[in-house]
């Protein structure tokens, strides 16, 4: 069933891309030789290009960082070590996962390959998920950038970390209680076994690390690029004023800010600066929702999660995180 949906989704995506290309080609006016390219581009397309490339150029170094970091874990950290470091008691392991960001300050693009590797190395799933959600918020780099962006209310940086901590731990507990089936994507285990086999066959060989980096670059890259493209198009066509008009009641304003965080797909290091530009329009608890939700989930990372986890699991995770962030930030004493 899911496989069918997925293949259907692929076809839709393909048709969309071809349609877009067709529109793009026909919408361009004027003519010129290839050398001249005297085509008049619609300024909106040029803006989309600017946003698309800038999100991509910003994210690629961090994706590569994550890829190499995961290769590093693969080579130098043994499964035994991961098991020994992770607290035995499942409840003690939850805060451990949430605070792991202090050890590995990675942003949300880099964290997915790292978590995948750690789970493969024997880290319990719920701890991995807690790290996945909390890591990009509860880490010194992101906290200090939030602190700088909100010079007027510096305590928001701590509220942000604390709220993300709470949400991640609750989600981790839910995963611990309810997820029985292995959520890793079909074929993922085979791939992991395969990678491990390669690593063992050629352990210590740099070229193996690099060829896996290429695999992972293309694997993560397609989701990253697709997410960046959607985000770029939306940023050009959706005006903030419309968002502000929708977000009049507290719940609506939280949902609007979360929706924006999801669609904009900003790096968790930079999103605080965007959030602070809304500080005149929205109450700070709505900003908190933006700050907590964005790094946990956005278009780009949702698609990247699909490269690692089953579609059904990702869908449920997105649902649970959305509801929880909304509830927690609405009730958060600010």
């Amino acid at each position, binding site marked *: 069933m899911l496989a069918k949906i997925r293949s259907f989704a692929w076809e839709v995506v393909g048709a969309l891309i071809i349609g877009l290309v067709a529109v793009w080609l026909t919408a361009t006016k004027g003519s010129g030789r290839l050398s001249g390219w005297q085509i008049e581009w619609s300024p909106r397309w040029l803006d989309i290009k600017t*946003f*698309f490339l800038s999100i991509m150029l910003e994210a690629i170094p961090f994706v590569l960082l994550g890829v190499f970091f995961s290769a590093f874990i693969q080579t130098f950290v043994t499964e035994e070590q991961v098991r020994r470091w992770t607290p035995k008691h499942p409840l003690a392991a939850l805060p451990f996962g949430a605070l792991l960001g202090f050890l590995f300050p990675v942003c949300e693009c880099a964290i997915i390959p790292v978590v995948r590797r750690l789970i493969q190395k024997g880290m319990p799933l719920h701890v991995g998920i807690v790290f996945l959600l909390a890591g990009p918020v509860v880490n010194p780099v992101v906290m200090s950038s939030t602190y*700088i962006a909100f010079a007027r209310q510096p305590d928001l940086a701590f509220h942000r970390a604390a709220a993300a901590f709470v949400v991640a731990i609750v989600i981790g507990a839910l995963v611990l209680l309810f997820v029985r089936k292995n959520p890793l994507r079909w074929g993922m285990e*085979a791939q992991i076994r*395969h990678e491990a086999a390669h690593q063992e066959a050629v352990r210590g060989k740099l070229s193996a690390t*690099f060829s896996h980096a*290429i695999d992972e670059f293309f694997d993560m890259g397609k989701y990253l690029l697709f997410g960046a493209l959607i985000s770029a198009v939306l940023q050009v066509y959706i005006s903030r004023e419309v968002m502000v008009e929708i977000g009049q009641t507290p719940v609506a304003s939280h949902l609007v800010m979360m929706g924006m965080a999801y669609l904009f797909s900003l790096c968790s290091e930079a999103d605080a600066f*965007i959030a602070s530009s809304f500080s005149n329009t929205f109450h700070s608890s709505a900003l908190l929702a933006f700050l907590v939700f964005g790094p946990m989930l956005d278009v780009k990372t949702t698609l990247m999660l699909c490269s690692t986890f089953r579609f059904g699991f990702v869908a449920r995770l997105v649902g649970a995180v959305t509801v929880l962030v909304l509830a927690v930030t609405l009730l958060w004493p600010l």
Partner: protein
Amino acid sequence: MNQASLKRHYWVRSLILSGFTLLLAKLIVTERLSHYLAPRLHMFSYVTLGILILLTLVSIRQAIVGPPRYECDCEDAHQVPRSLWRSLIVYGLFVLPLAMGFLMPEQILGSDVAEKRGVTLLGNDVRKLGAVAGAANASAQGAASESLSQSGGAGGTAGTATSQPSGKPGDGARLAASPAQTQAQTRSAALSDEQLRQKFASGLGDFYTDMAVSLYKQPVIQLDDKVFLDGLTTMELYAKEFAGKELETLGFVYRQPDFTPQQFVVARFSVTCCTADANVFGVLVENGQGSKWPTDSWVKVRGKLEARMVDGYEMLVLKASKVEPVKPPKDPYVYYNYDTPIGG
């Protein structure tokens, strides 16, 4: 998956990787990287370029030598798209940014985006900063704000004294220091550094005091790229003091439907990490021939700052005496000095 088709995939990948390498190299060589990333992220891009070159080489090697012949039982785990249809989509996604990067001209962000984002004019956020700092310094400023309310009406806003006893903490301190200050703009040149520092003393930290003093000392304030954001913030904090000063700055022309024909905004985009997080800041300019300058064109303006009451607080408007068209600067975006105590 047979060997030959796997090799084809590796070739396609090599081409795409070399495309990314070339695109990044092109942006770096032509110094266009700042159209996409803030300078503090450029270092990452240089490293990325090195890694991409390495990956391209490894990938080409893979394509020539073929996939490594390991003894493993995982033939189908190799991450290459299986059907032709899927390959087209996946590789199309990678080719798209390359095509855009190489074929589409560069365009710096302009009014279209500014309209979607909303422009922060001189005087929006900054009041809040004042209010917060004012509350924190309430005790220290107690006496000063008392004298403020007594001397009520000395300055334009002092009389309106909104909900806060002192809307801007600077007001109180300044008025206490020299009550007749507002009328003394012309004599300012004679003030020594120390006096100036006193004039701009406030609870907002030395940064803004230093900034205000250095701006104020200039006969014509040069709001250039380096100080654009911080300077704008500073002048907003001390709107009253800066009223009447001459200012020169440049930016692109932005208009809103409710503007009069004489009005336009000289705006800049501020970028924190990547262009997608850009925010718009600007100064409202009034000029008799304002309608002459097309939206999105870059202009250099020079004129006198004038304080005006908008919604019960003071806002600076630039009465431009001179407007001239200029070329957009090489790096069209402006940045906060990262160690400053304020952002966005």
